[in-house]
């Protein structure tokens, strides 16, 4: 009985010779988004956890105060898109490495894609349709500028 083993790192199918090299662009994306994410995430953690009273100050009024400024809206939306696509693509790498069986692999990748797409859509809508001073809500829960 001579079972044959593939040489280590034998690809599932030969690399494409024509067309867009998506794996290469994915590889480049991981590095470019990584550099930008360091700035976005460290800035996010600094503003929300270090400045002032940190986590204990986070509530609706805090978020409302931040997103009243387009600068922080765009900051958070950029972070949302870059991090979800970076994380989703990284999770795809893990599925490629560990998941066995073509159906199972396809199902996991579809789940990752769905989660990333739905959360990008949801997050973007929330940031841009957010109302910091909803009518009929108790004033003590709202940002202070709502009273003016």
């Amino acid at each position: 009985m001579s079972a044959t083993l593939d040489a280590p790192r034998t690809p599932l199918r030969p690399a494409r010779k024509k067309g867009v090299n998506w794996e290469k662009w994915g590889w480049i994306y991981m590095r470019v988004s990584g550099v930008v994410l360091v700035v976005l995430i460290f800035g996010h953690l600094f503003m929300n956890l270090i400045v002032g009273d940190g986590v204990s100050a986070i509530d609706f009024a805090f978020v409302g105060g931040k997103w009243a400024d387009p600068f922080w809206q765009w900051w958070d939306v950029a972070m949302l898109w870059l991090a979800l696509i970076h994380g989703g693509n990284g999770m795809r790498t893990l599925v490629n490495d560990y998941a066995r069986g073509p159906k199972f692999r396809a199902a996991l990748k579809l789940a990752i894609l769905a989660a990333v797409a739905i959360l990008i859509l949801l997050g973007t809508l929330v940031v841009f349709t957010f109302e910091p001073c909803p009518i009929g809500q108790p004033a003590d829960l709202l940002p202070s500028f709502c009273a003016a």
Partner: protein
Amino acid sequence: MWSWVLHRITGVAIFFFLLVHILDTALVRVSPEAYNAVIGTYQTPIMGLGEVALVGAIVFHAFNGLRIILIDFWSKGTRYQKAMFYVVIALWVITMLGFTPRHLINVFSH
């Protein structure tokens, strides 16, 4: 090899946290009460310690990610990969020494 294992584990952990974090933040679109109720359940000592672990994971993944990028693009990157790993550890320790006391004071004094 351990840098790679840690990079994977922290990457996955951050991804799952991010899914939950977007959903809880989306509650601002529901109502101030809904958002404050859920965020309030996070503002406990246990969660405060969890946040230290989470920030620790992100800071490691970030610094080690920059190290990977340097290994790939800097001509001397592979030669100094081990030294850069020790730099990553050192920067991680320094960052966490700055972050942890500040964060725990915020968690425990309110």
